[in-house]
């Protein structure tokens, strides 16, 4: 098991390096000069060259990549071009804020999705199943930013029971475990949870139906096991498939949603990316994307490891 763990972690390294290269290259592939935002209009060629040297943009691309990645592994992602503050001090709090929102949305979405999916899978073809299918289809098809705006209109504007934006009193950007912060969390978390809820409900339903068709389920009934024990078998067999999809959803939510965070002015990574894109703040963009893509890699690794714990057949492969 330990050997498998080490091997899996080792496999992840080339993926992480590849991802970081793509992160780096993407920015340089984008049209336009990354420095155009900071270079004053009508600046002399000497000034432009000076600025370029200051940011290291005069070096060849491979050198720039190695310098960037070397500093990045030491926690130095450079300075924000707009705020002149270290990228890490901008990205760090944003990541935490997005995580808070993601955890809330995931709890809500996965809980709802798993519950509905199991109910539908166990009653395939029944009215319950049809209702769940309708709910999950609308969950994935309704645009979540639109739902966010609808929620704001209903609960903030018309009913006035929940705040419409921000994550605390007076636009505070730090989260406290108090009633005010929790109230700010409710609407964006609901808006973020509908897509994972729909996707998870569908995949749980499909997997449960598939598992219930297996011969070994008939054996369990032939052994006279009570329904709750059969359920344990169904869950353990369905878990690896569902976990893979959950991992992807979780990674996506941790990436933050530019649209939902912008609608609710939630100071997370999505909000930060949005700002960085419009201000052409290259170091912030690179740093944020790199951190987020490492989340993806890490979560995929975790899902792989969990799957191998649940299904003994995976370790052999």
């Amino acid at each position, binding site marked *: 098991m330990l050997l498998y763990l080490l091997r899996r972690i080792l496999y992840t390294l080339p993926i992480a390096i590849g991802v970081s290269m793509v992160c780096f290259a993407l920015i340089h592939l984008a049209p336009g000069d990354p420095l155009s935002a900071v270079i004053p209009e009508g600046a002399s060629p000497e000034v432009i060259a000076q600025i370029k040297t200051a940011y290291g943009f005069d070096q060849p691309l491979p050198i720039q990549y190695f310098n960037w990645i070397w500093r990045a592994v030491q926690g130095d992602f450079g300075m924000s071009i707009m705020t002149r503050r270290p990228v890490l001090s901008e990205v760090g709090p944003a990541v935490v804020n997005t995580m808070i929102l993601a955890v809330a949305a995931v709890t809500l979405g996965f809980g709802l999705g798993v519950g509905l999916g199991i109910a539908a899978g166990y009653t395939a073809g029944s009215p319950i199943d049809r209702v769940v299918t309708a709910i999950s289809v609308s969950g994935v098809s309704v645009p979540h930013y639109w739902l966010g705006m609808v929620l704001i209109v209903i609960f903030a504007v018309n009913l006035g029971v929940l705040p419409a934006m921000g994550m605390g009193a007076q636009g505070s950007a730090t989260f406290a475990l108090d009633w005010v912060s929790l109230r700010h969390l409710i609407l964006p978390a609901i808006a973020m949870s509908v897509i994972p809820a729909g996707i998870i409900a569908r995949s749980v339903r499909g997997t449960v139906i598939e598992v219930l068709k297996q011969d070994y389920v008939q*054996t369990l009934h*032939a052994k*006279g*096991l009570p329904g709750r024990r059969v359920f344990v078998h169904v869950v353990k067999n369905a878990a690896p498939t569902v976990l893979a999809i959950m991992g992807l959803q979780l990674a996506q939510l941790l990436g933050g949603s530019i649209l939902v965070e912008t609608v609710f002015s939630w100071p997370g990574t999505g909000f930060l990316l949005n700002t960085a894109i419009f201000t052409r703040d290259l170091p912030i963009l690179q740093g944020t994307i790199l951190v987020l893509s490492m989340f993806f890699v890490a979560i995929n690794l975790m899902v792989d490891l969990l799957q191998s714990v649940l299904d003994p057949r995976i370790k052999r492969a």
Partner: protein
Amino acid sequence: MVETQTPLVAIEDLTVRFVSRDLDISVVNGVSFTLAAGEAMCILGESGSGKSVTLRALMRLLPPAARVGGKISIGGLDVTTLADGDLRRLRGSLVSMIFQEPMTALDPVFTIGTQIAESVVFHDGVSYSAGRKRALELLELVQIPSAPRRLDAYPHELSGGLRQRAMIAMALACRPRVLLADEPTTALDATVQIQILLLMRQLQRDLGMATIIVTHDLGVACEVADKMAVMYAGRFVETGSSVDVMETPRHPYTRGLFQSTVHGGMRGAPLDPIPGSPPDLAELPPGCAFAPRCPAYEPACDGRVPDMVEVARAQFARCIRCP
């Protein structure tokens, strides 16, 4: 001696239909038999003859679309009217089943030990560790080598023969009085088949279980069974002791079945298959279902389904030509 006991298993006029919105198939059409403790019966038939469905009906292990009629009495219990909870207590403890394909019939993500122990835990109400202890006893009973180690093995880590032994151990976990086996050796290699059959025969005798084995393999049938029932289109067409049925088959279908079987003594002789194919169960003829394929067909066969008549002592056949 057997006649004086109340039979452990008594099936009377069992019918099973599969009903859906646009389909109504009669799979089992009036099967009756009794079985005493310690007796082994074999139900022989082609695929689709209703033999597996008959077996599953005995513990009501059928999909919701199945409609079961007739009387099923096991150990004095009326299985057809049993409440769900009582049915669950009957399954696995009074009656248990061995399936054809141990690879798919065992849960791939639980160890053999856990899968045996959980039956014991739920039926005998003991702790999990007591269940595991019983599981070890059972693995030794079915002669699995280095049993303590196999307790923690997953099904995919065992060979086909060992998997089927583990399946048998699981079926025996709660000391059933009736053991049902659905083609228990079909998925195994020929050499392993013999070992499993000998093991089943020995366990059945040692533990005094009533056993019903469903198979299409004549070799299996004559190896393990005292009684034999030949099934065609959802009905028994011939019943009797294995020896009588094998030596003097009376029904034309039984004869055809024996003639179309390959064995060593017939090297060089041409095979003699039964012409035609089994009837469509959705549209059974009013008369004898075998008539269209029967070499001894006469117009009277189409009249009505013949009754089971005693053709020799304790041997019955369903054919109008049989005396």
